[in-house]
């Protein structure tokens, strides 16, 4: 009986966590931040995340609060999370770059092929949500143009609409591709940030294997595969090794 009541209360409580409530917590967290009570701000932001709501702003603000608290690893983690949702935001890029300066590891990334680089930076012009809007607009427009092309009998207009169909079909396909890619990127969880001050990276997932190199807090690593509590990581410069899961947090 007690339990049922408790669950009932929890349900009501959960239900009451509507968007407006989330907004209120968010505002109070921001107030803490402005008053330079960063730890309290962090607690409030985390409270929101625990309800399951998220957006780019909260991750960005949380990253800022951690930055002010001096935990660079966490700051970078949340900036990266924010960047996934709103990749085009300048503030995030600025603060992330700033936080990255504190990383002890100086890794020179292997350069990507130019067209891949161009494509990636193009997809990051907008957030996945905005790409969705672009795609929907183009899609609806394409359909309307097709309908118009069917109905309208005037030859001149028909010819014009014919060309328009090709154009909008191409754009729609492109935006769909980008949309799918950016959502794929958004839902990829194979990047992680090192949380420990210093981690020795081993050659194999065993305790007594050779120490290859060490990584420090804040360094971004790519997860290649996992083996129980061990994770194989690769750095931007191509170095590969194994570390235990508890040293990193997935973006």
């Amino acid at each position, binding site marked *: 009986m007690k339990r049922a009541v408790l669950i009932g209360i929890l349900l009501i409580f959960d239900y009451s966590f509507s*968007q407006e409530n*989330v*907004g209120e917590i*968010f*505002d109070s967290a*921001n107030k803490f*931040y402005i008053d330079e009570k960063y730890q309290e701000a962090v607690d409030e932001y985390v409270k929101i*995340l625990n309800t*399951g*709501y*998220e*957006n*780019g*702003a*909260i991750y*960005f*603000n949380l990253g*800022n*609060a951690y*930055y*002010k608290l001096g935990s660079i690893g966490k700051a970078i983690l949340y900036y990266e999370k924010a960047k996934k949702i709103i990749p085009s935001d300048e*503030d995030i890029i*600025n*603060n992330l770059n*700033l*936080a990255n*300066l*504190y990383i002890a590891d*100086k890794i020179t990334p292997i350069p990507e092929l130019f067209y891949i680089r161009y494509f990636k930076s193009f997809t990051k012009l907008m957030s*996945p*949500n905005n790409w*969705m809007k672009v795609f*929907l607009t183009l*899609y*609806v427009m*394409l*359909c*309307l143009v*097709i*309908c118009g092309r*069917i*109905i309208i009998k005037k030859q001149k207009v028909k010819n014009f609409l014919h060309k328009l169909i090709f154009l909008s079909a191409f754009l729609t396909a492109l935006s769909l591709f980008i*949309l799918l890619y950016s*959502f794929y990127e958004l839902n990829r969880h194979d990047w992680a940030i090192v949380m420990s001050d210093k981690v020795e990276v081993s050659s194999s997932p065993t305790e007594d294997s050779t120490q290859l190199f060490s990584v420090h807090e804040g360094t971004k690593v790519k997860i290649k595969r996992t083996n129980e509590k061990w994770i194989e990581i690769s750095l931007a410069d191509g170095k590969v090794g194994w570390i235990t899961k508890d040293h990193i947090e997935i973006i």
Partner: protein
Amino acid sequence: MKKFLILVFLILLIVTKVNGQEIQFTASVDKTVLSLEQTLTLTFQITSSSANISGTPEMPELDGLTVVSGPNLSTSISFVNGQVSSSRSYSYILIPTNVGKLTIGSAVLNYNGKVYKTTPIEVEVVKSAAPQQPKPQTPRTEVPQDESSDLSKQVFLKVFVDKKNPYQNEGVTVSYKLYTRVQVRSYGISKPPTATGAWIEEYAMPQQPVLSTEVIDGISYQSAVIKKLELFPAKSGELTLEPLVIQADVIVRSRTPRSFFDFDFDSFFDDDFFGRTERKNLVAPSVKLNVLPLPEEGKPAIFKNVVGKFSLNSETDRTDVLTNEAVSLIIKISGTGNIKLIESPGIKISGDFEMYEPKVEEKINRSGENISGEKVFEYVLVPRLPGVQKIEPIIFSYFNPETKRYTILTTEEIFVNVAPGKERLSAYPGNLSRDEVKLIGSDIRFIKLKPIQWNKAGDRFYKNYIFLTLIIFPLILMGVTIIYNSHLEKINTDIGYRRDRMAVKTAEKRLKESAEYMKEESREKFYLTLSSALRGYIADKLNISEVGFLTDEVKEMLENKKVDGEISNKFLELINTCDYLRFAPTEANLQDMKKIYQESRETILLFEKHFNSLKIK
């Protein structure tokens, strides 16, 4: 006389006679007894039967004697009766520093793998003649027999040291003063003072020594500082400053008054009217210093062995500059002490500057009371980025021996306003390390206060209702458009299709017409239009001519189309009824008309429904 014999013997002494090689290695001195102010000439002679002699003798240990000059090398080759003999001699001029019996050790010569040694020579150094009591106006006859032996009292050197226990690297002023009662015509330094483990900075001395009168033990002397130097010990411990030796030409009065008869040539040229010139070696004693190490306590990390008293000053030649224009930062350290050892204190600037190696200038003033001067470091800085750039304070540390404390000097920080130059920077200086960039980095950007929207974590875009609606609705719209368009097209092109589709509409039109006639109660016209509506409908449906409508033919066609027999029969019967009633002689019955109108209307609709369902099958 005995001494003289020994002397002659020594000069002629053949120390070593070697068989075969015919080499002789001898050592000789010009006198065996000498006083402190006399010099001793030590000569090593190598005589050989062959013309070429090589190798230099190693100096023996000389206790109580100091080398003033030498070796002076002289070589001679002689041919006697066809025999060649050559000799080589190395002579040294020594001065005694101690009184007593001294031994000149064996000199060693390595020649053709053989070792030759000289025999040691004993020399006796005696004090000069018994001190003379100063006598007022003694008669000339009572003038001492040998005034030269008394010269050590008349002319001597004294050394003054300002401190005996200096700190390491602290300057010690050593001055040498010449005291004389006789006239010194000229003097020359034959051996400057040296010290190992220290470096010496000499003061500039005036061309003519400044003479002053001093009284020592009641005797007045003419005195002059002839040499002054600053000694900087490089390490702690005992330090010995080797003696200074000067050679002075002094004028000595004639020992005896001369009568005219006493004239002799030799002494005439010696006489110089007032006295004769005598060359004398004067030795200033060596100085022993006990150098103290610098205290460890309170020693700053930046301390770099600079001892003395200094001031620090730094400035830039301008504070407003364009990018890529040079600014010079001048650091000036001035004061007294070991200026030569001063290193650049180093500057700290942000990575926005390009920095070059400093130009170092050293000015030392040797003529003052102390060795003073300044060291100037000039750094050329080229700002690469615009903005207000800070040059961190410059820190310099020295040890002040007076207060026995370390002093740290700092300058104020300097701000340089850098305005963007005309030419834009092509690239960010590439050699910046991360640490340098950190200085440039300002604070992070402020948080976001108004989020656009909240999403549930893990939401997929395709689960969004608006998204799904916007995807599906245009598809439906497109489908409808396509169907509608094909219908329109068929109507325009296919007569059968159009008749089929328009059949109901046409029939209804006619039915309406017949309804009008029904109201007018004109029986004939009513049945005519009703019948034509029914016939027209079925003709439209079957795409046949309305004219020449044959019931049997139609029935057959309907059967072919698999129309339900009952419906088709009912339909045809209705047509027949219409035709019959049209010409029937009976009175017009409104009731019947209404009934048949209703019936035919229902039948048409029923047929349409049935016919369309057949088409779908």
